[in-house]
């Protein structure tokens, strides 16, 4: 089975700040522009690496249409000023698009068919809503065995909460913790290494003067974390996905805008350009689960990824478990017996936001830099995926 001929190393991993959607700081920032910024920042981290050697740019995006449509990967390659010889491909596995892009890029190197790859992710939920602009369903999803395909993500979280008996209080506590951890990490400057500042330029009509006002500002911090969150304020929110449910806007991930990019190279390239590897990509796994309880997906994918990496679950020091919902996060943590202290030590998507297809790339940057700062060995990025999947990728700090 194992056809690997060489290892894939990450030499750059960065991401933009995450903006709230649809009315946050990036509401007028095109996702292709966000992606360009992430690509340019990543390449600038390895100035010695000849960009002509980049084989391909693989970009994850969950709703690749409109402003992030066409082939946003190739568009961004050109807009970023990368050599025209560099390829671009957009991949979609919803929330696991970004980590899938990393895995696919790594694999090109690992089978020996590429020396330098870029993996990235991008999503503007401000500009392209969930389901996209023109959702259209197949009649066959209403057959009993397919009905879960019609379930919105929130309802699947309700189903997990019901089945795993996860109370509203526990979900709210988890959500509050996410905010508290995120705020603490922000105050300690823990996101600094992974974050690329973004200049926002907005052109707005000034009706009084008849002129176009150009507003420019630079942002470098995620927008979603709330220092004023409390159990009392969370308890006030009404369930939105089920009349008698427990899942609220407060214990669900936020809709967001953002992009992330990583540069992966072979050992040969490391040596050739004298590059410092940040991490080695070890393994990736994906598993399907019933779509109506898609949130439990990581439970199936995580052990497979560990096996593929040849390590045990308890060897993982840091989990970036995407908090699509508190309910599914708690179910996964409980069923796999994860140490809560190792899960999202800097907060998760409930506080920081979840720009769907970008999240895998963004959280890869998070875990890679966090392991370096704290001198840890193995880290994982994992998430549940709409229509019933779980995905997990494992990195080893270098």
């Amino acid at each position, binding site marked *: 089975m194992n056809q690997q001929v060489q290892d894939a190393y990450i030499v750059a991993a960065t991401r933009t700040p995450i903006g709230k959607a649809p009315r946050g700081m990036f509401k007028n920032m095109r996702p292709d522009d966000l992606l360009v910024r992430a690509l340019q920042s990543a390449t600038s981290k390895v100035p010695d690496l000849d960009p002509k050697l980049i084989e391909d740019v693989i970009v994850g995006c969950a709703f690749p249409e409109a402003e992030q449509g066409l082939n946003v990967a190739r568009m961004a390659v050109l807009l970023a000023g990368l050599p025209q010889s560099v390829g671009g491909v957009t991949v979609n596995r919803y929330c696991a698009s970004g980590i899938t892009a990393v895995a696919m890029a790594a694999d090109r190197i690992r089978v020996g068919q590429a020396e330098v790859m870029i993996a990235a992710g991008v999503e503007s939920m401000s500009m392209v809503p969930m389901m996209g602009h*023109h959702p259209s*369903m197949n*009649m066959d*999803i*209403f057959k009993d065995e397919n009905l879960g395909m019609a*379930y919105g993500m929130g*309802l699947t979280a309700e189903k997990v909460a019901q089945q795993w008996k996860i109370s509203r209080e526990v979900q709210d506590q988890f959500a509050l913790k996410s905010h508290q951890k995120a705020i603490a990490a922000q105050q300690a400057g823990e996101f600094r290494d992974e974050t690329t500042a973004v200049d926002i330029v907005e052109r707005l009509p000034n009706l009084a003067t008849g002129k176009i006002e150009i507003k420019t500002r630079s942002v470098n911090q995620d927008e979603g974390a709330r220092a004023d969150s409390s159990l009392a304020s969370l308890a006030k929110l009404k369930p939105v996905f089920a*009349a008698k449910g427990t899942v609220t806007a407060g214990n669900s991930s936020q809709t967001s805008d953002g992009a992330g990019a990583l540069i992966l190279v072979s050992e040969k390239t490391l040596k050739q350009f004298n590059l410092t590897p940040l991490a080695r990509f070890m393994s990736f796994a994906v598993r399907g689960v019933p779509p109506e309880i898609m949130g439990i997906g990581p439970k199936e994918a995580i052990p497979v990824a560990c096996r593929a990496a040849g390590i045990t679950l308890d060897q993982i020091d840091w989990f970036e478990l995407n908090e699509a919902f508190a309910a599914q996060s708690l179910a996964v943590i409980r069923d796999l017996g994860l140490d809560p202290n190792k899960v999202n030590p800097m907060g998760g998507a409930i506080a920081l936001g979840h720009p769907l297809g970008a999240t895998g790339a963004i959280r890869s940057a998070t875990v890679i830099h966090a392991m370096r700062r704290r001198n840890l060995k193995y880290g994982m990025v994992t998430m549940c995926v709409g229509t019933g999947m779980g995905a997990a990728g494992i990195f080893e700090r270098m």
Partner: protein
Amino acid sequence: MSNFIIKKVAVLGAGVMGAQIAAHCINAKVPVVLFDLPAKEGPKNGIVLRAIENLKKLNPAPLGDKDQAALIEVANYEDNLELLKGCDLIVEAIAERMDWKHDLYKKVAEYIAPGAIFASNTSGLSITALSEGFKAELKERFCGVHFFNPPRYMPLVELVPTPATRPEILDQLETFLTTTLGKGVIRAKDTPNFVANRVGIFGMLAILHEAKKFGLSCDVVDDLTGAKLGRAKSGTFRTADVVGLDTLGHVIKTMQDNLASDPFFSLYQTPEVLNKLMTTGALGQKTGAGFYKKVGKDILRLDFATGNYVAGGGKADDLINRILKEKDPAKRFAALHASSNPQGQFLWAIFRDVFHYIAVHLATIADSARDVDFAMRWGFGWNQGPFESWQAAGWRQIADWVKEDIDAGKALCNAPLPAWVFDGRAGVHTPQGAYSPVHNAYVPRSTLPVYQRQVFRAPVVGESAAEGKTAGTTVFEDDSVRIWHQNDDVLILSLKTKMHVISPGVIGGLALAIQEAEKNYQGLVLWNTDAADGGVFSAGADLQSMLPLFMSGGVKAIEPEVAKLQRAHQAMEYAPVPIVAAVAGMALGGGCELLMHAAKRVASIESYIGLVEVGVGLIPAGGGLKEAALRAAKDAKGNDLLQFLKNYFMNAATAAVSKSALEARKMGYLASSDVIVFNPYELLHVAKSEVRAMYQAGYRPPLPAKIPVAGRYATATIMAQLVNMRDGGFISAHDYKISAMIAEIVSGGDVEQGSLVDEQWLLDLERKAFMELLNHPKTQERIMGMMQTGKPVRN
């Protein structure tokens, strides 16, 4: 001709009244700038911005379309007074303090454009005193313009001139208020609290006084003085709680301060119980306690004797209920007058007090008895004015009884009834006009040209004016409809059924009216004779009348009736002469479908329109969903049809009803070319004008065309959302079934996207689904529940 057009209004003061008046201007497409003080912190126009934000939350809604709140221009007295120069009408609505108002007037006077009208919305301060210090030229353009809360919904506006006010200013303002803002205008004299509050607050004080005297509790009084007397359902004390006891106290204070020589002066003392409530901060609804206090689910009443809150729910005695149900007012009053029951004596007493009061004060507060009656009807929501009640009950007999009570010391003061009461008259309202003691004459109705727009004016008891029910020439009449005309070239169809439900008789009448209009008239207007008096356009299909048919022939017997309704609506749509629906009040279910098939609609701003069939487990099958598909296709113009269908689908699937004509337009039930009328008395005039204009312009009905439909994937996409609603427990399995059927019909059925269908195709889908549902036990449960209790069954 000469036009007087108000191009822009300024409202000074963004309090409850000022902001709502500004909102109503926006409803009526009158540009308005709203002023208040500059905010001390934050954005300079913060006070006004907050008031505008609050407009979106108020219930009942001041704005017909909340999204239009941003159309109110914001301003403050420090930076923006220049804006006043561009306004033709300036309404001051700041707090009721003479000194504050004078200060503001000094500040704004130089910015008021020459020729602009300046008016105060004071509820009781002297207009003449307010105008002191003005230059003579401004005095001529100043008057009182007193709106009632909530100004969108309460028709009354009292116009109060000073001796210096130029008459044409009042005429111009009355014209604007009447037709543009749709208000009912009376002219009041510049006396404290003017007419409506003077009589209305007196009436409340009298009720408090008599309730104490006869030992009645506030819940019983409210049951006696609410709907049973044809007044606000909330009665007396509950209304006071809603208005706010501090506000009430304030208005009473105005009477204390300014009416020392009034023979009823002793009654103007703030009642002890009210004083106590105010000092403890129990100011009514806004503070959670007043005459009533809500504790959990219970509403407790104040016990006058102990000041504690105790269990409420007291009702009128059966005996009194029977008396109040008596149709003949003479018999009703005689029974109350003769009653030994304390509740009966109480009711007689409060009527006697008001009759006494209005007779004594008519000469000083109003020009004629009609203005007093309209003031109470339009400003306090009474079905009948006090002079009307008196006259209807037998003028002389009532007068004698009132006099007896005065002589016996039972009345609130001993001021005698004026001599004119006993001059042999049968009342104050006659075909010549309403009595004016000052002129000792009967004053005819205003002849301002604006009233030519009202084919039938608001009726008054005893005036014997022509009524819509009987006026004109009848072409056909039965129990269901009257087809008639005013001896001109526009035919009128008026529904006679209860709540104007659509019965087989109405469907037949509609077909007949269309035939007749086609042969002999320029067009047809659908207008109900109670349109301006709170009537509904139509409450929908007449379920009751279908029942015998259903019992004898089952569901199959109903199908031909549905087909007949569909054909009638199609005949309307394709009639060779224009058909205009004059809409006011509720137009639900079949009523909504009826108006959707007219060539044009003229709708009162207070139009509550919706396809509500799902409430009884059915779907619209009179072409309502066919119209949804057709309109969405027109809106989409070849773009993604589903985006345009969603709105129509949601409206039908959730039985959404518009809260205004503006909202109905957004929902797609009214077209952008339809006319919104602010004064419901103008509906018939405007509808007829539209028929004539359309006829003159060479009206042709639409050409039948094929309709592109969204098809089966659109159905699936909508259904996917419904699955989430169902499995999330928001809707029942039967709701899901009905909604999925609606989705399929508006998408054109189980066909490919972009398929071309005709109207009959969609109508057949409607009918088939309707029949399937009618056969469904859950739907039958909903229908029976609605017929038995009038409330929707959730199953």
